[in-house]
């Protein structure tokens, strides 16, 4: 009887000790959430710090993490030199995605008027971020203009911020408009698989069509007004936009409205 009691007490002590030890190594959250008066934004701490959800006034703008890398917002670094082979068949080896990085951290600092979300490599560098490089999201508390800052020279041929915005919203297509550097206004139309259109543009307007007669959308603008480029490609339900973070780095502003 005494022996049984001793065994039970010992087992309880052992279980509780295991719990105690494991509690010291508390698991960090897999997500970082920023909630403001207007935005609910989720960063994926596990997948390189990409944005998996971007909600403005409760309305989602991204196609979402169930689409994997294709539904989340992050940086893409290309090593493709543009000379050999079809870029479509070379995606697997030439394109490095922030989503695939496992050594990135997401840290948040809170200011009086905004949150700064910084994404860095824990090892000093990664396939996406070079030594000491970082991506900083500036999310205001009381206004609707988000900024993404990438103040570094491109590591390879080209680097893009990848923006998978919803195209098919509740059965109605959203519109994507490029305002080109030559003064044109181009309304995007979907392209076939492995195709995309290219525009010299520093301003885009994405308008969700699920909310008439009051439009809801975002104007996206790079603060370097010299030559910019923007691509789009699409599957049926997504505008797959790419905005370049090249040369001396870029700061991109997204003015949400509606």
């Amino acid at each position, binding site marked *: 009887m005494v022996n049984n009691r001793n065994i039970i007490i010992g087992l309880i002590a052992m279980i509780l000790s295991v719990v105690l*030890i494991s509690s010291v190594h508390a698991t960090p959250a897999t997500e970082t959430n920023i909630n403001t008066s207007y935005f609910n934004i989720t960063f994926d701490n596990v997948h390189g710090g990409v944005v998996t959800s971007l909600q403005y006034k409760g309305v989602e703008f991204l196609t979402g993490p169930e689409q994997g890398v294709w539904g989340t917002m992050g940086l893409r670094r290309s090593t493709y030199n543009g000379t050999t082979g079809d870029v479509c068949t070379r995606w697997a080896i030439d394109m490095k995605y922030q989503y695939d990085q496992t050594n990135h951290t997401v840290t948040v600092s809170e200011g009086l008027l905004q949150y700064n979300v910084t994404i860095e490599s824990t090892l000093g560098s990664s396939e996406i971020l070079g030594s000491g490089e970082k991506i900083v999201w500036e999310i205001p508390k009381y206004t609707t203009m988000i900024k993404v800052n990438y103040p570094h020279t491109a590591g390879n041929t080209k680097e893009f911020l990848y923006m998978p915005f919803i195209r098919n919203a509740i059965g109605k297509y959203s519109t994507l408009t490029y305002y080109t550097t030559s003064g044109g206004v181009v309304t995007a139309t979907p392209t076939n698989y492995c195709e995309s259109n290219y525009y010299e543009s520093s301003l885009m307007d994405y308008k969700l069509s699920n909310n008439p007669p009051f439009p809801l959308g975002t104007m996206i603008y790079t603060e370097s007004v010299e030559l910019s480029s923007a691509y789009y490609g699409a599957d049926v339900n997504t505008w797959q936009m790419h905005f370049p973070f090249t040369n001396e780095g870029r700061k991109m502003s997204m003015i949400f409205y509606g």
Partner: protein
Amino acid sequence: MERSILSLLTLAILICPVYALNIDTGALNVEFDETNGVISSLKYNNTELLSETGKYGAIGLISNNGNYQYDSNVIFSNSTTGEVWTVNIIYIDGSESTNLTYTISKSYILINITPNNISKLLVPITQESLLKIITTNGTLINANDIYSEYPAQAFQFNLKNTTYLIGLFYNKPLNLSYGNSQESWNLKLNTPKLDITSIYFGFYSQEIPLFHEENNKNSKTSSTSNSKKPYLAYFSEITMEQNETNDFELKFINLDRKIDSFEVLENPEVKEWISFKIINETLGTYAMTISVPEDAILGIRNFTIKAENSKVSLSANFILTITELKVIPIEEKTIENKTGSPPTDLVVVIDNGIMETNSKEVMLGLHAENATECRFSNEGKEWSEWKYYDLISPWNLTEPQGEKTVYFQCRNEYGNSEIVHSAIEYIIPEITSPPTGQVFTATPTIIASAIGGFLALLLFLLYKRKK
């Protein structure tokens, strides 16, 4: 020292020759006045965007003292790099000197103001069409004839469906005030006090090439491979009023035979309003006539035009916005409409209705019927400025801690509403911890485990002691 520099600058103004400058980028034409550095003419695709002459029709600074740049002399210089022009202006008003830099390219003007002690940049654009303003809370409003002021981050001006002027205030939001002065939207960009203020004006026309294809995602050069493919140049966004009929040009490029049929898809209502006719068959130019009925419901319609012949099938998407029929306000101000009433059903909720807060910064949830502007007050003492009505508004409670009451009132053209209020207990936190952004989900587990671990240790010690 500063006064000496300013004296030298003033002397420089008197002895330096000033000259007229006309910058023609092909599409954008900017004319600077020869003496004072204001922009006296602003044309895009030969359309003048400034409506008046004189100081009320020129783009220029208005000082804190109410003086116009138009009435002063400035130091004026310019340079060119490739297709980009830079114009530097030093404007002196009293003891203050301001640098104003315009960077001008084919489709944009970038304005930098340093340092920003100047109160306003006047941009008087023609009032021929719709002016939309995006405020800092994301609200999209149409400018009207009543002088108003908003914290703003962008505006969009759409002239005759063919020309866009988009203004972005991307360093920090600005206070934008506007009011009609005869024929112009007098935009006054009331800039915040920053080291530098940047304003971007982009100019665009709506000619849209379809089928601009590219097979290689990363190569710019391959985009020209389809240049001989037929495509349609058209205007995709159309704004029309109720009871308005208008022709819109559809121009087919690289088309070697006429279009046999047009079809309106996706919107049966709009289909009834549209007809097509040939303008110039050889040039591939057609007219799409849209007649909006007087009783058409306001709002946005999407539709697609499909054009076909035996060789090609082209389609294009359109967005048609129906706006209210404008009634010319003849002697409008002398007619009083006494049928309206001030705003009603006001509600104010502090921080989603929680009972206590330890933050002075709270968010007000708001509701009011028929309100145009609202204001707030702590304890009903000093009221804030009237602001454009929105569903939420940040607000600061006052010290010291205790029960705080926030008062809320709105107004419209018929008068002020009743005042409503809501209360919350403000408790100043004893210990403040540094802000951390990383979210950890295991906090309850840690606490439970720590207690469990402590109990286990206690049991083990008791057991050992008993033994």
